[in-house]
């Protein structure tokens, strides 16, 4: 139980750090002086002190949406697979609930974008809806095949099973699922090449465009939601597709898990440096790729059993 809550707290604390870590790595690679890992916290505290400005065009949605954006993601943290042996994990929640919760938060994010009658907001939610519509099937299919391989739909149980015995016999479909899930990780969290969180250029904006009219606490909430979303995906990826180090001593296991997260973050950072932001209408190619891989893994599992 202690490990359970410990992990959750750990993840919450880690979330901003991970994002700023990615940024830092990128800057290093670009021969700039890297920002500190705690930049995320600084931004947060800064935003907390600011007053919130609410547009007169907006409605109750703006006042409520941020909470509904954050809360499902926070909830997901409780459902993640265990990091170490003997840690408690939630058994009554399965993969669909998690995808559902993610889309719940996206839903309100898009509404938020449309609520302030600005051109940016509409643009952002339009693009976001497009991307998430394409992400959804890939995600479901991937989770399907993974949980088939794990032999259980309960996400926690699935993580445990994978850790207990690694599915060598289904290596092919496991690999496909992994690739597709990694693409999803990039797409859902609005990283390059799907979206560029740094710039505020209307050509490239997706996620930022929706939150353009927010300041202060609301913006803080949204940003932390983003970081939590990233860490959720990262840890899912870590515990489903690198199911190693589960059997270590608890403390070591947790440390190993954190290392895994940072490795993933590094990969993402390197990827971001080396690729250019895709045009919006090129994005479907990428997502289509992930759908194809997910489909492939399902088919290979079904038909070939490999």
């Amino acid at each position, binding site marked *: 139980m202690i490990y359970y809550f410990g992990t959750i707290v750990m993840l919450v604390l880690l979330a901003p750090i991970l994002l700023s870590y990615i940024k830092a790595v990128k800057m290093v690679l670009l021969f700039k002086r890297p920002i500190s890992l705690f930049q995320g916290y600084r931004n947060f505290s800064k935003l907390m002190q600011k007053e919130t400005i609410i547009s007169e065009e907006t409605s109750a949605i703006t006042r409520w949406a941020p909470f509904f954006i954050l*809360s499902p993601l926070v909830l997901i943290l409780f459902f993640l697979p265990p990091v170490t042996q003997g840690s408690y994990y939630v058994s009554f929640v399965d993969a669909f609930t998690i995808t559902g*919760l993610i889309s719940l938060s996206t839903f309100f994010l898009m509404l938020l974008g449309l609520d302030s009658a600005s051109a940016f907001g*509409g643009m952002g939610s339009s693009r976001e*809806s497009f991307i998430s519509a394409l992400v*959804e099937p890939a995600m479901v299919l991937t989770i399907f095949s993974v949980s088939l391989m794990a032999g259980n739909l309960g996400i926690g149980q699935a993580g445990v099973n994978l850790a207990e015995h690694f599915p060598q016999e289904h290596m092919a479909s496991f690999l496909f699922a992994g690739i597709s899930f990694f693409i999803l990780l990039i797409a859902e969290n609005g990283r390059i090449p799907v979206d560029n969180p740094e710039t505020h250029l209307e050509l490239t904006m997706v996620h930022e465009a929706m939150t353009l009219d927010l300041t202060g606490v609301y913006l803080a909430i949204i940003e932390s939601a983003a970081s939590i979303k990233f860490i959720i995906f990262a840890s899912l990826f870590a515990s489903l597709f690198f199911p190693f180090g589960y059997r270590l001593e608890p403390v070591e296991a947790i440390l190993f898990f954190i290392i895994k997260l940072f490795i993933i973050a590094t990969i993402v950072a390197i990827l971001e440096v080396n690729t250019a932001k895709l045009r919006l*209408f090129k994005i479907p190619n990428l997502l289509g790729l992930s759908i194809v891989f997910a489909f492939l893994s399902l088919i290979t599992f079904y038909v070939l059993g490999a």
Partner: protein
Amino acid sequence: MFQFDTLSLIFVALIFFAAIPNIFYSLGYLPHIKRKSYYVIHYFAFIFSMIGVVLSANGLVFLFFWEIMSLASWQLILTEPKEKSVIDAARFYFFMTHFGFIFLLLFFLIVSNGDLEISFTQMHSIASIFPYPTILFFFLILGFLSKAGVVPVHVWLPYAHPAAPSPASALMSGVMLKVALYGLFRFLFDVLYPWPLEWGTFILIIGSITSLVGILYAMAEHDIKALLANSSIENIGIILIAFGMGMIFDTLHMEILSTFSFIAAMFHIFNHMGFKSLLFMGAGAILHQTHTKNLEKYGGLIKLMPVTAFTFLFAAMSITALPPSNGFLSEWMIFQSMLSSSNITNDMSLKLAIPFAIFALAMTGGLAIATFIKAYGISFLGIHRSSNAKHAKEVNFFMQIGMILMMFFIISLMLFAPQFLKFFDSLFVDLGLPSVYMRIFPEDMFSIHSVGVHGGVVSPLILLAALFGITLLLVVAYKVLNVKERIYHTWGCGYKTSAKTQYTSTGFSGVMRRFFNWLYQPEECFYKQNLAGHETKFLDASYEVKIKPLFERTIYDGLKKGINTISYWVYRLAHFEQTRYPAMIFNLMLFILFSYRIFTHEVSWESLMIESIMMLISMKILVIGEKK
């Protein structure tokens, strides 16, 4: 005459749940209608005929009420025949229903040996000895699914349902489609049982295709009621997916799983009735206030009509299957049932069909979110895009009551899911399948278990509680911080924020439309008034997109053309000049006597050939005559 088994009663319950809020709603809607008595008569005739259909115990009564139902709904569509489109829609609808009726008629006549008063079980004994059961199956499919709006016989639906007055369209989308599905269930179970594997696969496939097509066209719609109608097509597809899975499992003797899938289908039927009725009521409320169905003319209605906005949002969340809404639960069950098919080992077609269905369902879910974000965001959020929207007010008391009642029904579907599932379970126990209630709820009421091996679990109430808790915490924290707020208006990059700066519905679905261009093939009309020859600067510009459904363009228009040509030639043929009448009779007699002679005595190809040659010659000489 009538029967009251569980299946019928469940659907009667469905009709009542739909009708009671709807009656309140139309009570409030009535002042909006000119031909009141006409409307009321047909409205109640419609409801009663639907009840009659689901209660009827023999073919004659069934067909009778079925036709009354079509008749009444057709008349309901014609309640306000202001513009031509309504009249055409009504005609198209009535023709399609009759088209379906033909196949039903044939089906019934075949399985009842012409005596329509026999019960369904007797029909079963007749059908079992009929040599070509697949023909019966396809008659059934064409008969009922053309009413339920399944691809490719769905084209009438997005025209017909929006044309009716809103309460009526709520009933049509919410209940009438389900009554069609009732027919399918009833006769697949009572008459055509057991099923070969292909039938289940077929239903699964058409269900997947239907859901995809429906949601894709819903995405591209600008007429809010047409959008809802298209999404009804999608939901029917989803229900069929579940039903097909059930049939497949049943054929493979996995009774537990099949019951589970059937229950999922029933659950989704109820859910769809709930939220689709509510959505149509909301759309009706907007229409009632703004007098337009065009999404582009809405905007900012959330401030003017809060109750409608809230209920609409609620229904939208439920239809997009966001946890922990009831819509999520039923789709979750459907996913689970499909996932439990992993250990099907024998059939290759299934191994390809089921992943496709999974993909279709998932894709549908994603697109549904986009669609309803558009529907809700464009109509309720932002700034009003027209003066109609500017002067809208909250609708009257009765309409609010109707919507709120329906919302309560949806909430109850979520909260009392176990009780509902028990209800459905008893139905399938009644139909001779094993009970799975105890396996769905092994220990407690809180978590719904999938019955598949290592199936998933979901616990809506806990989710709901947790979500509320966390949100509450956040809100409380926010209040504690008591940050000071400033009211200012949206930043429009230095321009003044106005209706023109925000995204239109066309713009919102633009990305999607561009991606699915190969399907939509839209005809775009772009108008721009340039300023002093500058390409980039312009005073005024407008961009419109019209999308004619692919199936309509291909199948239906083609058919129409064909019929026209045939009728033209028949017309030419029949209009030979009247002096030729005796000649025609002459040839007729020649032909018939000759054929009699041949067919009674020697049938051989020579004699037939001689006859045909002789007929040709005499036709040439006597009827056609010389070229002038």
